């Protein structure tokens, strides 16, 4: 168990390329986050919890689907930590598991409307499915 957690942590750090130790805990990422109210765990908490190995709550949290990858946190972080990349990596460790796609093709028809651009479907699939 310990081992699996540690492996996951390393995987998250590897695929994101983020070094959470650079964080100086100023909270500017969460100050800047447009999805703050929708999230249970916020960008700075992702950074802190990945660093401390507290992955389970993050992996189970809906917060990983609420990040818009708008990169405001990345842009404004004074230390170059790039929290959005870390959140994406956490999400990927979930949806890369077998059968763990968050968005399935079958869900789509119900959500379609006349005007939906292809871009939206493509983006959502990329973000929520493997």
């Amino acid at each position: 168990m310990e081992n699996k957690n540690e492996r996951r942590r390393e995987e998250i750090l590897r695929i994101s390329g983020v070094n959470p130790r650079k964080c100086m805990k100023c909270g500017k990422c969460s100050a800047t986050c447009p999805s703050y109210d929708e999230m249970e765990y916020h960008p700075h908490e992702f950074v802190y919890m990945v660093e401390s190995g507290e992955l389970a709550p993050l992996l189970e949290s809906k917060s990983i689907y609420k990040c818009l990858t708008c990169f405001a946190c990345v842009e404004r972080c004074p230390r170059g930590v790039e929290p959005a990349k870390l959140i994406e990596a956490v999400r990927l460790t979930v949806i890369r598991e077998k059968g763990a796609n968050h968005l399935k093709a079958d869900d789509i028809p119900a959500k379609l409307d006349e005007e939906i651009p292809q871009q939206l479907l493509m983006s959502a699939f990329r973000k929520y499915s493997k």
Partner: protein
Amino acid sequence: MQRIGVFVCHCGTNIAGTVDVVAVAEALKNEPGVVHSAEYQYMCSQAGQDLIKAAIKEHNLSGIVVCSCSPRMHEATFRKTAAAAGLNPYMVEIANIREQCSWIHKDMASGTEKAIILGKAAIAKVNLNTPLTPGESPVTKRALVIGGGIAGIQTALDIADAGFPVDIVETKPTIGGKMAQLDKTFPTLDCAACILTPKMVDVAQNEKIRIFSYSEVVDVRGFVGNFDVTIKKRARYVKEDICTGCGLCTEKCPQKKVPNEFNLGMDNRRAIYIPFAQAVPKVATIDADYCTMLKTGKCGVCAKVCTAGAIDYEAKDEFIEEKYGAVVVATGFNPISMDKFDEFAYNQSKDVITSLEFERLTNAAGPTAGKLLRPSDGEHPHTIVFVQCVGSRCEACAEKGKEYCSKICCMYTAKHAMLTRDKYPDTDVYVFYIDVRTPGKAFDEFYRRAVEEYGVHYIKGMVGKVSPEGNKLKVQASDLIAGKQLHIDADLVVLAAAIEPDKSARGLATMLTASMDTNDFFTEAHPKLRPVESPTAGVFLSGTCQGPKDIPETVSQAGAAASKVIGLLCKDKLTGNPCVAQSDEMMCNGCSSCERVCPYGAITYSDKEFRMPDRTTKIRRVASVNPAVCQGCGACTVACPSGAMDLNGFKNNQIMAEVDAICKM
């Protein structure tokens, strides 16, 4: 061939306990060049020294080796002894047979054997020693202080107080620097002008001090004790010696739309101006970029109203050449540009200001006569948000912010917050911080008073974005303790901008061959032990040009720099260390390798003519070392591919002889 005397010290039993000193003296007797060998209880005692002096005379010694304690202990002693007996002090070598032999080895046999080898190495070296005479250079008894802020002012006053003439070069039309722009000073809250302007007057009235205002240093040559400096005095189009500072011209000038830099552009001044009421020198200056007369030749109002006849539209830049013994750099700082931090909307709203602008907004001599009013509409702000660390501790991007902590922001922000709450109790004041750093006498107490007595809201977290909406500034921020994202409708946002060294510092460092760190702060000769000296001899550092500092620190460093300058100027002649590098021009390639590794800028090049064996002449570029500047590290000797560069006292062949002596078994 040298005539060498060897003197082996017992140091009581300190040496004699584990080294057979008699055997050492006996063994060294037969080394090449040795004509005399003796041992004695305490060589460093008066009797021991007398014994050495007598031997030098009796045996006509040309060099001596003392086998004793560490040279760090008594090398100077024995050099004096030798000099007293008429021997060049640099013909003395010490074999360290105490700290590096008797004290660490238990066994008499191996201790003795090693002591003999160390003695042989010292003898081998002395055989190659040559008498050295320290170079002497005169000292020009005048100091130059570059920068006329509080650091430069304090340094100049202290040097002048000791009786030495000092020149201050200041780029602005007046001295005073940043401190003149401040309102109150932490943690005592005394008014900056009240404590600074008397000092400015002292400077003006001090007969030893000359002020070159509106001037800059354009060239520096020479070395410690002997700097030749060229100062450019920019044309101010007003004769300084005639202008009385009455200020009539500054009221009548028709060009009213010049941004007033003293108030950071928050109001306007005229094209002819005196920066502020207590300016020193109190003379007017014409801003050539805006003056209609200078630009078009039509106007001349100031000349008409000046009863003293001080206006001179024909004035030209003047160049002054002066000699100095010491140079003090006091170029200070500036807040960084907020252009790259527009998430705080500095460029999008007039009501987002920097802390220095806030100082002017609360200063009685400022654009609002000391009333805290919003720059956009002149209304009194009811909610003020202070943001700390804007651009400080910022590692993300080099062209954006600074990696270091600017040190002064925590305290001045606490001051601003406290003063605002004191004067306007109806205002809500928020301070967003990452850490509050208040090391300093009565500093933390000050910050706590802001929180506890004045009710300033300190919130751990950073502001993410400031959005100007209507006449409000919507501030979106983190409250990390409460775990909330805050949204505050503010009337005024104040940014604690990071500070950086003045832009002029880099060019100056090049002229002075003084080193700088990656942030363009001047480097000190030693971070702990020589904090006010540059590694370049004769160049001293005062104030924030060396690193972020508050006023008390700046003033103490300014005084320390002054005392170092005084110590230098007190000397009539500088006696150098003769163990300096020396270039053999016959072998020098002129390749510049040595110059590039020299931390002191001691090496220069010139083209010299050499007569060749075939009677032709050849011109070659060759290096020469200024012995007054060289500190004798030897970096150049290894960088030199041809071996033309050598170090007196530690010559290649001397060290090689030591190696040979040690390895000859």
